[in-house]
Each structure stands twice: as structure tokens, then as C-alpha cells.
């Protein structure tokens, strides 16, 4: 919202003060200003001139030869604006040679089409006053021969108030309310509003409000003999400074009052309002019918619902309450009779309708803050007083028809002055509290028990000040928070529990980045839909969004991998060997309306320039094993899923080149993650160049929910170990894990301390060779070769019998 310094001066004499300094004070004590803008500076050289004659320039359709009177004499100007043609006798603004416009343009004597031109007739935009550039600026009621700033108060300082900072302050949505604060800040006095207008007695307007909750107050009056014309320049200047385009005096004044007092108003041309037999306008405020529609001022037909509130005459809706008037009854240049509305509407009603229709107006923005129900009457008088100043014939012919619910009585708050000091943490005297609140319009009474009885003024009482804490804020901000010395809080004695989950997440991150050499990424909580579609994945089982920034982000992620695949593909344009990982929450729906499971997961992806998929798989498996070590070695095991139909149902997982990570959680075999190559069909659509892709994802919350036992030290061996290497030929569908298990089982001896795979070669014809490195050791002596051979022989025999393995060497 824009606040004009000139406008503030109508309410409080700020002469001698620096608008920038007062603006700083306002930011520190009231609400943030997003900016302070000086406007209309450097226009002293610009002069008002009267257009004496306009002639077309031969051979140049768009140009006119204009003779103007500049207060001293005539000069000739060549002008290209179309509106100059009909402007004979009007006053315009001239930038004479030597003047510099705000956009940097320097005006010089010129000759155009052989005609001398002594300056330029300017538009508002060229003068930096508005965006208006349809033609030259034509003034009303201004004499020629004046310097522009002398003729019109174009020079101003505009505060840009951060609307968010005054969400809770309906009183600050107008200049009068801002002036009230500024008066307190600058210790100057606020002028009371001007006296009331003389009302009429004709009973030509009736008002009926069907729902006083949604329309707590509706006032209306009828004005006759209105002469609709452009507003005086001072008013136009104020409106322009605050970003409002001047239209005509009546419309401008409704805006003026809204920007001044904060109460939106509406003016109807009575020619378009139905009257009854007694020549009365019957206004009804009622809920809309869902079959109804209204064409609003902006020319759009709006379908209505029963949650909408309408202003109707005896036949039809004429305005959408608190949001926008109807197109038919808008003020036109020949309007002479005006019905003026000043009302208060329920914030929720206005908010809902304006949100549903996507129709946010200056009016709805104010009503949805819950306005002071005492304001409409003041606004109506304010409008009429100002109207009569610029349109003296205008007469209010009716009383102020005023329908309202019982207006709320001032709300008293019992304030313990000691609490103010205690909450602010600095001593504030009762006198200071009383004085501060009184300046802001609160009525403060002392009570015998030491409390203060504080009555909240109506303009602060709607949604703003209701409890003691609100009063403390009022006092605190005016005392100035920088005047409250910092004071260290008392120490919390209890030490916090160590954030184990956080620390483990950190371990995981350190390992994955610096141990496994992957790069951490962060991706959206949404799943990137085009990726799912390309992968041929079924999007179900993912939380669906009701509103989306784009159709591509219409569901929450259930797995981290698709987003990682998206990143992998992007990066594969530049690199062929890399790994990415993410630690983040995924979302598993439970039931509609119930918060989903949202475990923290770690997902990783390896992109390697290799065709050796088994090697790639092993590399990634090693990464996960290392991750488990970093997490304190929880009892997670890998289960091969080959040929089995298990939990891996996503289309991008490889059914025969994947495995699950399994853990026993409370005695139940629980899947805590998976590792997989990309499904061959997905491989065909994901472009990672010549690189292959493998990925894993594990549920950190599940894994960390099971405390891993403390790690125990093992004494160092006293006697040397014996080693023995064996190779077997087995069927290539036999897993190395099965061979290893059979070796250990066949050995049946605790002397076999380790059995590690060191070779796995495919021999063709459905055969492969697997080689193991066996380590034997006694704790109480040295093993003999014979003992080792005995054990190995038992294993070999067992393998032969159970797996049909043939010993190839050893």
C-alpha cells in the first residue's frame, strides 16, 4: 500500500520533518516500509501553458502545429499526441528548451518538418508521475504560466508499506490511521475529521439487511445534482501518488475516502436502480442464489454461489458485497443522482468469494481484515463533505439510512502494569503505560487494585487488540525495542537428549559424501511426473495434490529414486562416471485424511561407464555395506530376490538384478530397502549415454529404530593363521552366497574363521567358477596342514553332494 506524505499532512502537520527519517521510525515502531520514493522531483522548469491553436502539419498525419500561451507570450510547438487536436483552450504542460525530464531526456529547440518547435508538450509518464502516456497531460482548473510544482502538488514522498506487516491492522489501511501513528511517533497532534454534512429528509431509500452477521452495518444516502467531471488536480495528484488512476470526481472520491479512512465505498448511478411505486430505492443485502450471476464493473459475468453476499435493488443484484459493483449502475459522465453505500461486511464472506472468483480488489483486501463497524458513518460524511467542496451543488436529499446489528461496546482489558515490565524485561512505569496507550486512542482508567482498565478503541478492536499481550506489544513498540536491554535467559538445567537420529543422519551423509564419494543432492518432495511416465511406472500409491504449480508435480514422492534418475540423466550430459544421493522424507499414504508415513530415506545412484553390470551392482552393494557400518552396523541383511515376486513392484526396478535389504523389526521380517539395476525397459528410455545405472534406497528411520548392539573388541590372534584357496565349478544359477554357505556348513568347524569370495567367472554352458579364500586358525596352537586338509575335504564333499559343485583347484 502506498502512503503519500502530502496526504498525511492533511491530518497532521509534519512540516519541518524529513519523510525518510519519519519513515525509518515507522519501520522501527509500527510496520515495515518496503520503500520510500521521492516523486515529482526536478519539475520546476516545467510550465503550464494554454493551447491557443492547433493546426495539422502538411504531409505529416500525426503531427500538429500548436501555438501555446506560456504566461508571457506565445510559442510554437510541434506535437505528435492525438489528443492535442481537440485541446484548444485547455491547459497543458510544457517542457521548455533547457528542461531535463526525469527519464533523462534533454529538451532542445528543434525544427520538425521545417517548423520550429520551442519545447515539448509532455504526458504524465514523460514527467515520471504515472504510467499514463495515451496523450499529453491536460489540466483542469489551472492557470497557464505557472511552474508545474507551484500549480499542482506533484512533488511528494511515497511510503510503500509492506502489506503483510499490517495484515492484523485494519486501521492502517488508510492515511488517517497511518497519520494517527505518525502523530504519536512525531509528537504532533492529529486533526479531527471534518464536520458532518447536512443530511436531507426525503424517504427515498430503504435498506434491508437479511444477514447482520455477514453485513454488520450498511449505510446509504442519496445525493442529487451531482456534476460528474474530472477531479481537481490536488485530488488527482494524491491518487496518482498512491497508485490509483483518477477517473471522475465521484469515483475518485470513493477511492479517496477508502484510501483515507480505510473503508471502501460504492457509488451507484440511481438511473439504473429500480424504484418502487413510492419512488423509493429498496436496497436489500442478501445471500446469492446459486442460479444467479452478476456482471461486475470489469465486464466479467460472475456465477454466484450461496456463500456470496449481494447488494440488490428491488429487481436484481447490483453489486458483489465488498468486492466490486455491477457494471450497469456504474457512475458515468452524465450521472446526476448517486446512491452512496458505506458498509461493513464480514471478513470471511468477502475473503471466500474473492478467493473463489480470483477477484482481489482494494475493497476486498480491506474488508477481509474485519473493519471497524463505526467507520461507515464517518466515511459517508467524509465523502459528502469532500464532494460538496468540489461540486457545490450536490445535495444529500435523504437521511443516512443506517441498518446495523448492535454495535460492539468498547472491550475492556484488565492490565496488570507489573506484567508489562515482566514481559518486556524492562521497568515501565504506570504513568508511561497510561500515557502511551492514551496517545494511541485507548481509554485508560486506574483501578483500586492497581490494575488498569483499558478500553480498546473501535478501530483496534475488531481483530487486533483483544488480550493483555496485545497491549504489551503496543507499549513495547513505542518504548522502542532497542531500548530494552538484552538479558540472558535463565539456564535450562536439563541437558537435552542427544539428537541420535540427527547424528546418525549426519554420519550417513559424511560417509556417502566422503567415504563413498557420492554427491549429495536435494530434490522436491514431489515426484517428477514426466520421469515416472517415461519409466512406465504406475503413479498410484502416491499422495495426490489438489493444487499444483504444474501438472508435472501432481503427486508426492514415494521413492527417492525417480527424482535421482532425473538428476542422473541431466548430469550424464556432462559426465559419465558419478554418484548422487539424497537423504529425505518419502511419503507412504495410510488412509485418506490421515497423515502418511513419512520416513527419512537415503537413496543413492551410481552412474558408471561400464558394461559390467555385476561389477556395478557389487560396487553399489559395497556402498550400502559401508553405509551400514557408518550407521553402527545394524543387523541388516541382503536377500536376493531373483526369480521371486517380492515387494519390488516399481516398473523401474530390475526384477532379476535386484535385492532387498531385510531386518527383523520386533520379530517381524521387514523390508528396509532395496538395491537394483535399472529395468531394461527403463534403460531404453533413460539417456545416460554409454553409462550404466544402479541405485539403492533404504529407510533410515526403520533401520535406526533398532538399536545396533555395541561393538565388541576381539583379542588379536596369538597363533598364525593358515590360508587355503579353493575354486569350484557350479551351475551359473547357483549364487555365490549359497556356495559360501555350503563351504561353511560342510566344514562344520570353528577353525574356519573366514571364507571370502575372490573370483566369480562365467565359463559358458551354464557354468561358472567361484573361488574362495579360506582362513583357518586355532586360538590355542598352530594348525597342521593335515587338519586344514581334513576340513577342506569335508567342505568339498558337501558341496559336491549338495550343489553338484566340482572342485577346480585348491
Amino acid at each position, binding site marked *: 500500500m502506498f502512503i503519500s506524505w502530502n496526504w498525511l499532512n492533511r491530518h497532521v502537520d509534519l512540516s519541518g520533518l524529513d519523510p525518510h527519517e519519519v519513515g525509518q521510525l515507522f519501520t*522501527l515502531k509500527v*510496520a*515495515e516500509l518496503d520503500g520510500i520514493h521521492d516523486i515529482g522531483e526536478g519539475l520546476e522548469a516545467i510550465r503550464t501553458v494554454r493551447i491557443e491553436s492547433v493546426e495539422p502539419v502538411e504531409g505529416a498525419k500525426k503531427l500538429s502545429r500548436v501555438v501555446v500561451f506560456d504566461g508571457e507570450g506565445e510559442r510554437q510547438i510541434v506535437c505528435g499526441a492525438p489528443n492535442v487536436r481537440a485541446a484548444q483552450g485547455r491547459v497543458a504542460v510544457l517542457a521548455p528548451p533547457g528542461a531535463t525530464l526525469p527519464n533523462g531526456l534533454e529538451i532542445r529547440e528543434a525544427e520538425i518538418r521545417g517548423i520550429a518547435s520551442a519545447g515539448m508538450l509532455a504526458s504524465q509518464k514523460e514527467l515520471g508521475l504515472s504510467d499514463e502516456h495515451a496523450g499529453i497531460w491536460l489540466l483542469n482548473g489551472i492557470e497557464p504560466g505557472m511552474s508545474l510544482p507551484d500549480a499542482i502538488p506533484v512533488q511528494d514522498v511515497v511510503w510503500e508499506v509492506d502489506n503483510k506487516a499490517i*495484515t*492484523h491492522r485494519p486501521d492502517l489501511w488508510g492515511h488517517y490511521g497511518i497519520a494517527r501513528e505518525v502523530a504519536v511517533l512525531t509528537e504532533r497532534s492529529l486533526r479531527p475529521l471534518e464536520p458532518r454534512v447536512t443530511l436531507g429528509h426525503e424517504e427515498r431509500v430503504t435498506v434491508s439487511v437479511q444477514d447482520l452477521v455477514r453485513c454488520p452495518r450498511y449505510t446509504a444516502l442519496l445525493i442529487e445534482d451531482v456534476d460528474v467531471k474530472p477531479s481537481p488536480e490536488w485530488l488527482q495528484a494524491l491518487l496518482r501518488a498512491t497508485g490509483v488512476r483518477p477517473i471522475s470526481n465521484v469515483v475518485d472520491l470513493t477511492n479517496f475516502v477508502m484510501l483515507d479512512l480505510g473503508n471502501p465505498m460504492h457509488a451507484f448511478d440511481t438511473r439504473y436502480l429500480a424504484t418502487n411505486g413510492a419512488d423509493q430505492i429498496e436496497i436489500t443485502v442478501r445471500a446469492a442464489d446459486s442460479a444467479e450471476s452478476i456482471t461486475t464493473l470489469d465486464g466479467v459475468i460472475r456465477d454466484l454461489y450461496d456463500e456470496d453476499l449481494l447488494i440488490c435493488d428491488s429487481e436484481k443484484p447490483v453489486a458483489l458485497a465488498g468486492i466490486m459493483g455491477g457494471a450497469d449502475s456504474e457512475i458515468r459522465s452524465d450521472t446526476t443522482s448517486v446512491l452512496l453505500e458505506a458498509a461493513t461486511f464480514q*471478513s470471511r464472506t468477502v*475473503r*471466500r468469494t474473492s478467493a473463489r472468483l480470483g477477484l482481489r480488489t482494494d475493497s476486498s483486501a480491506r474488508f*477481509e481484515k474485519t473493519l471497524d463497524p463505526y467507520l461507515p458513518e464517518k466515511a459517508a460524511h467524509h465523502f459528502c463533505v469532500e464532494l460538496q467542496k468540489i461540486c457545490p451543488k450536490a445535495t444529500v436529499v435523504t437521511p443516512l439510512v443506517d441498518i446495523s446489528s448492535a454495535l460492539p461496546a468498547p472491550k475492556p482489558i484488565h492490565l496488570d502494569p507489573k506484567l508489562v515490565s*515482566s514481559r*518486556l*524485561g*524492562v521497568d515501565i512505569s504506570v504513568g508511561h503505560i497510561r500515557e502511551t496507550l492514551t496517545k494511541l486512542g485507548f481509554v485508560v482508567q486506574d483501578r483500586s487494585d492497581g490494575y488498569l482498565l483499558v478500553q480498546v478503541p473501535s478501530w483496534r478492536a475488531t481483530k487486533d487488540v483483544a*488480550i493483555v*499481550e496485545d497491549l504489551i506489544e503496543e507499549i513495547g*513498540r513505542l518504548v522502542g525495542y532497542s531500548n*530494552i*536491554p*538484552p538479558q*540472558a*535467559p*535463565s*539456564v*535450562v538445567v*536439563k*541437558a*537435552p*537428549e542427544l*539428537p541420535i537420529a*540427527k547424528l546418525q543422519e549426519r554420519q550417513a*551423509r*559424511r560417509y*556417502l*559424501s*566422503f567415504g563413498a*564419494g*557420492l*554427491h*549429495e*543432492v*536435494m530434490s522436491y*518432495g514431489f515426484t517428477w511426473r514426466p520421469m515416472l511416465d517415461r519409466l512406465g511406472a504406475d503413479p498410484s500409491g502416491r*499422495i495426490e*495434490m*489438489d*493444487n499444483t*504449480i504444474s501438472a508435472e508435480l501432481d503427486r*508426492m514422492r514415494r521413492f527417492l529414486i525417480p527424482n*535421482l534418475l532425473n*538428476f542422473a540423466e541431466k*548430469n550424464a550430459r*556432462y559426465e559419465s562416471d558419478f*554418484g*548422487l*544421493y539424497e537423504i529425505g*522424507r518419502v*511419503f507412504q499414504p495410510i488412509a485418506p*485424511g490421515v*497423515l502418511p508415513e513419512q520416513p*527419512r530415506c537415503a537413496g543413492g545412484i551410481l552412474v558408471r561407464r561400464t558394461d559390467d553390470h555385476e561389477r556395478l551392482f557389487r560396487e553399489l552393494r559395497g556402498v550400502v555395506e559401508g553405509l551400514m557400518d557408518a550407521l553402527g552396523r545394524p543387523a541388516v541383511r541382503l536377500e536376493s530376490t531373483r526369480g521371486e515376486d517380492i515387494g519390488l513392484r516399481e516398473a523401474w526396478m530390475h526384477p532379476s538384478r535386484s535385492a532387498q535389504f531385510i531386518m527383523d523389526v520386533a520379530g517381524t521380517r521387514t523390508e528396509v530397502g532395496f538395491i537394483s539395476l535399472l529395468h531394461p525397459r527403463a534403460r531404453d528410455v533413460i539417456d545416460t549415454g554409454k553409462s550404466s545405472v544402479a541405485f539403492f534406497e533404504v529407510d533410515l528411520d526403520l533401520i535406526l529404530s533398532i538399536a545396533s548392539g555395541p561393538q565388541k573388541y576381539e583379542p588379536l590372534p596369538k597363533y598364525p593363521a593358515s590360508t587355503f584357496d579353493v575354486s569350484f565349478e557350479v551351475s551359473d544359477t547357483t549364487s555365490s552366497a549359497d556356495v559360501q554357505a555350503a563351504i561353511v556348513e560342510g566344514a562344520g568347524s570353528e577353525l574356519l574363521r573366514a571364507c571370502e569370495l575372490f573370483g566369480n567367472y562365467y565359463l559358458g554352458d551354464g557354468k561358472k567358477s567361484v573361488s574362495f579364500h579360506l582362513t583357518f586358525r586355532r586360538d590355542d596352537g598352530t594348525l597342521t596342514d593335515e587338519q586344514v586338509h581334513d576340513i577342506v575335504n569335508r567342505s568339498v564333499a558337501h558341496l559336491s553332494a549338495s550343489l553338484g559343485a566340482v572342485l577346480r583347484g585348491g
Partner: protein
Amino acid sequence: MEQSQLEEVKSAALAQVMAAEDESALRDAEVALLGKKGTVSLLSRGISQVPPKERGAFGRAVNDVKKAVVEALTHAREGLREAAIQSELDDRSFDVTLPGIRPTGGTMHPLSQVQERLEETFIAMGYHVLDYLEVEDEFHNFEALNIPADHPARDMHDTFWTKDRLLLRTHTSPGQIRAMRTLEPPFRAVFPGKVFRYEAIDASHEHTFHQLEGLMIDRHVSVAHLNSSMQIMLSQIFGQELTIRLRPGYFPFVEPGFECDVQCMICGGAGCRVCKHSGWVEFLGCGLVHPNVLRSAGLDPDEWQGWAFGLGLSRLVMMQYGIDDIRHIMGGDLRFLRQFA
């Protein structure tokens, strides 16, 4: 064998040693002289032709020759080694400017780095560090935080809704309610995390970004405490003593509410481009916890009070590294990520 012959062998042997120009020539000489069939080794055989009473003297003479040769070899070796060392020391061809060859290392996301550093700071100051849900309900995200339905403050929180009327938290503040309901007061806690706003993205707007929320609950909490806590906390975060200021700010879940500004670290408050010539940089929102919020979290406002703050982690990361486009944070581009090893 005559003494003169011995001398002859000896001088020939020493000459051979002296002639060796490198270690392999020296080794050849050693074998030729002292090997099994080496000329010096063979000298001992001549003892059989020496009369018995001269054998003692002959033996000594042969040993002297051997000793002289061994010494010469040792000396030659030392000389060669010394020459080699000197030559390496004199060598100017070694190029120390060749690029390092790194072990394959990954990177941590800059946001994680900043977040972890903040968490460490808070842990050291006695805070719990907690992590809360991202899909939230209306109660925790709005109602319990004193933002009822149709409250205009909801406009500041353009919200992502799910089809079943849950929402993506628009701020980390729902954590306040969850923390107050689970932790035994008094306590201090921070909860960083992802938040979501329903808005189009550009270089300075993201629908997904990160915040860090803090909450302290105690029996007596004042604006003066808040002021001090923010000053200490921000000084810790930036690793230097900072000047802060509080000014009115509106957040429905605190009363009074503040914007907390930090005196510009670039210009020290004199005014520069970064602080838009104001000398101050808006850094976080904070305030005393609103009694309605305490009540909805099950705490009695007459017994417990608190302060809360919320700061933009993504913004802090951007400030810290001078990142000019917020989209990089969630962009997954290695060319960006590799810069933060």
C-alpha cells in the same frame, strides 16, 4: 707370490673400483674382485705355494689387499650416493605445479553444510534438534498457530493441499506445537526442514525451500531474553559479535512479534548495496509465543511462556555463498554441487 705381485693386484683392483661410474659397474667390479672367482679372492689360494713360515705374513698381506679393496668399494659407493643425492637436489625439472590427483570424493550439499553447522551451534547451546513431518494437517500448520480458517494471514502462506485435505507445511512452525506436546518444559529446541509454498519459481522464488525454527519454553520469558538470545545465536551463526535490532513484525503465532535485523556485515551499518543503504539486513522473524498457541499445545500460559524464531536456511545459504539463483539449491546439477566440497 711376491709382495710386488700382491701390490700389482691391489693397484689394479683399486683402479677397477675407481673406474666404476655407477652402481652397476661398481657391482660388476665387486664380483670381479671379491666374488668366488674374483681376482682378490683368488689371492688366498696362492698361500699353498708359500713356504710355511712365510704363510703368516702372506696371509696378512692378502687380507690387507682385501681390506683396501672393500674400503675402496665402500668409499666409491658413498661417493656415488652422494653424487646421486646432489644431482637430485640440483635437479630443477621436478614440476610441483602439476595438478593434484584426488581420491574420488563426493560433496555435501551446501544446505546440509550450513544446516549442520547451525545444528552444532544449537546443540552446544543446549538445544534439542528435532525433525518433523513435511505433510501436515491444517490444525498443526494453521489453527494451533492462531491462524484460523479464513484468517487473512493465510494469504502469506500460499498452500499446497493434498486431495484428502492434508497440506504441505508452509513453515517449520507446526514443530512448535509438536515440540511443546512432547518435550517436558522448560526446554529449548530447533527444528530445521523443508517447507513448501504454492508459488511459481524463478531466480528468487522456490516452492520448496528450507527453514530453521527455534523455540524456548520457560517459566519466565521476556522480550529482553529474546533480544539476548537472538543476539547470541546470530553471533554464533556468523562467528562474529553482531549488533541486532528488533522491530514490530506480524506473525499470528507470536505476540509481540518482531522482525530481527542484523547490522550489515558488509558496511558495518554505514549503508551499502547489500543492505539497500539502510545499514540493516532483515534476518529472521521472532516473538513471544502467543498464549493461544501455548494453550493449543496444552501448556498453561499463566505457567509457561516462550519465544520462537524462524529463519530462512535457503536464504542464509544463498547469502553465505553469494548464490544468485535459488533454483540451484534443488537443481541437482553437479556443476553447482562440486563447488561445495
